[in-house]
């Protein structure tokens, strides 16, 4: 790319932001754009063909999380699934109670949705996490009241990679007759998920995080759980989500799920090895760095560190110039005044949060990619620290 004059390699390490569509997935989608382009609601061969393709994809998505096909609703993405789960349950169960529980470290699609419900008059408890970003199931239990109707705690934390004890939280929810939703956008395909074993009533998936196309997602809704639809119109998706189905997108998502399931155990092992190599390399080569997130209960593809005395965006720009894509929880990259709410909830200072860097590994990454990052990152840090008015490097 034009702005990467010195890059000797292209190393995409932002797979938690989005992933490329893998060739098998694109190949599965292609027939549905122009040839088999029917509307799945139509009463003719073009329509039946589309309907069948959707049914087939629904089976594949269900299979990845060990659900039944008719427990899967297709949506436009993880954000919509989160909104549908939370608003849908809150509105459907309003007469049963007014209290909702979530955590302080949810994705904005969950957090801002609870905040919107708070403005509508719901009572929301935001349970805190520990310094590793871990939610204590007992903290959730203590937050439950007589009028609690929904608990939503994510599975794999998107910034710091901590894997939350959703099975335990689900058990507590069930014990109290409260519905349990989990946002599994980052863990799906990386960590085995069985919605029944894990006591999950609603679960959010997003296609573009697992090498499927953007603009598609799904919500698992356990049989018997009632939702108030949030998009009204035609009688699609068991009348729970109106809108002409994105057939090629759904087909691609299905294929991505099928491949993810087949490759999960081996790919997880491979990513974990690369992850640990990168973490160890950074901690060894760069002084004044801390690892964010849990050291063990961690998504296989997530590395998150804070580079003290530096601000994240300035590191990202330098990395990009060297061909490396990563992300940061700095305020400058968040579109808000504050650095990442997740890092702050974990107890990081603002300053340390501004210096956070996330490397999210994926299918295309190799040992050589990690070596390359470990080669280019230290001089960038050194150069920027020499420019910084704070820290030992500043000489002040």
């Amino acid at each position, binding site marked *: 790319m034009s702005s990467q004059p010195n890059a000797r390699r292209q190393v995409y390490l932002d797979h938690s932001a989005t992933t490329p569509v893998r060739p098998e997935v694109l190949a599965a989608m292609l027939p549905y754009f122009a040839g088999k382009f029917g509307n799945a609601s139509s009463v003719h061969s073009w329509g039946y063909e589309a309907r069948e393709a959707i049914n087939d994809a629904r089976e594949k998505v269900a299979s990845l999380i060990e659900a039944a096909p008719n427990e899967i609703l297709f949506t436009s993405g993880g954000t919509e699934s989160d909104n549908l789960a939370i608003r849908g349950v809150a509105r459907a169960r309003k007469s049963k109670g007014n209290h909702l529980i979530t955590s302080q470290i949810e994705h904005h699609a969950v957090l801002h949705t609870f905040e919107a419900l708070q403005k509508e008059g719901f009572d929301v408890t935001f349970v805190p996490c520990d310094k590793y970003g871990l939610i204590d199931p007992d903290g959730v239990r203590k937050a439950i009241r007589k009028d609690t109707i929904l608990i939503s705690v994510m599975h794999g934390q998107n910034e710091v990679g901590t894997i939350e004890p959703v099975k335990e939280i689900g058990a507590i929810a069930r014990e109290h007759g409260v519905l349990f939703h989990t946002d599994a956008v980052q863990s799906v395909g990386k960590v085995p998920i069985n919605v029944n074993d894990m006591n999950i009533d609603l679960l959010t998936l997003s296609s573009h995080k697992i090498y499927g196309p953007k603009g598609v997602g799904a919500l698992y809704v356990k049989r018997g759980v009632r939702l108030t639809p949030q998009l009204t119109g035609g009688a699609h998706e068991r009348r729970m989500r109106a809108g002409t189905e994105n057939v090629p997108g759904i087909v691609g998502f299905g294929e991505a799920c099928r491949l993810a399931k087949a490759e999960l155990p081996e790919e997880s092992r491979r990513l974990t090895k690369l992850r640990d190599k990168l973490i160890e390399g950074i901690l060894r080569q760069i002084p004044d760095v801390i690892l964010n997130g849990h050291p063990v209960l961690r998504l296989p593809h997530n590395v998150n560190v804070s580079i003290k*005395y530096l601000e994240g965006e300035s590191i990202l720009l*330098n990395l990009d*110039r060297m061909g490396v894509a990563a*992300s940061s929880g700095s305020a*400058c990259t968040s*579109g808000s005044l504050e650095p990442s709410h997740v890092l702050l909830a974990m107890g990081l200072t*603002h300053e340390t949060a501004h210096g956070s860097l996330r490397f999210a590994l994926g299918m295309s990454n190799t040992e050589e990619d990690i070596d390359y990052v470990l080669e280019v990152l230290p001089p960038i840090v050194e150069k920027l620290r020499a420019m*910084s008015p704070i820290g030992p490097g500043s000489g002040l």
Partner: protein
Amino acid sequence: MYNDKVMDHFFNPRNVGEVENPDGVGQVGNPICGDMMRITLKIKDNRIEDIKFRTFGCGAAIATSSMVTELVKGLTLEEALEVSNKHVAEALGGLPPQKLHCSNLAADAVRAAIKDYYEKQGIGTDIEIDEDHHHDRGHEEEENIAHNE
């Protein structure tokens, strides 16, 4: 996101470091807010003879720091005080909308350094430094930049 001129100043910043035995030192922002800038000045005959900066902050923060040092070097103090953050952004060919309200405090740092110089010299001054600049970062006209993974 940033234009070529901003990127040039970011990747090849001019006048980085500390002037020796500075006549004035200005420091604005703080690491809690995500950007902090330190300007050191050498003054001779009421002119900025030398100027250096150190900055903790994003691309815009570093580029504006670099640019402001170029803009004010050689100017009289009165002329330098006329240079605003807006001038700096213009000299860079513009900043992304969401950066106009933040990370753009280079001119303030220069003013702070000149104020410091005046104070050390015992010269009375009414220079005001907007210490609160972070609190009015607007979002109205923002582009859609977000941390959404």
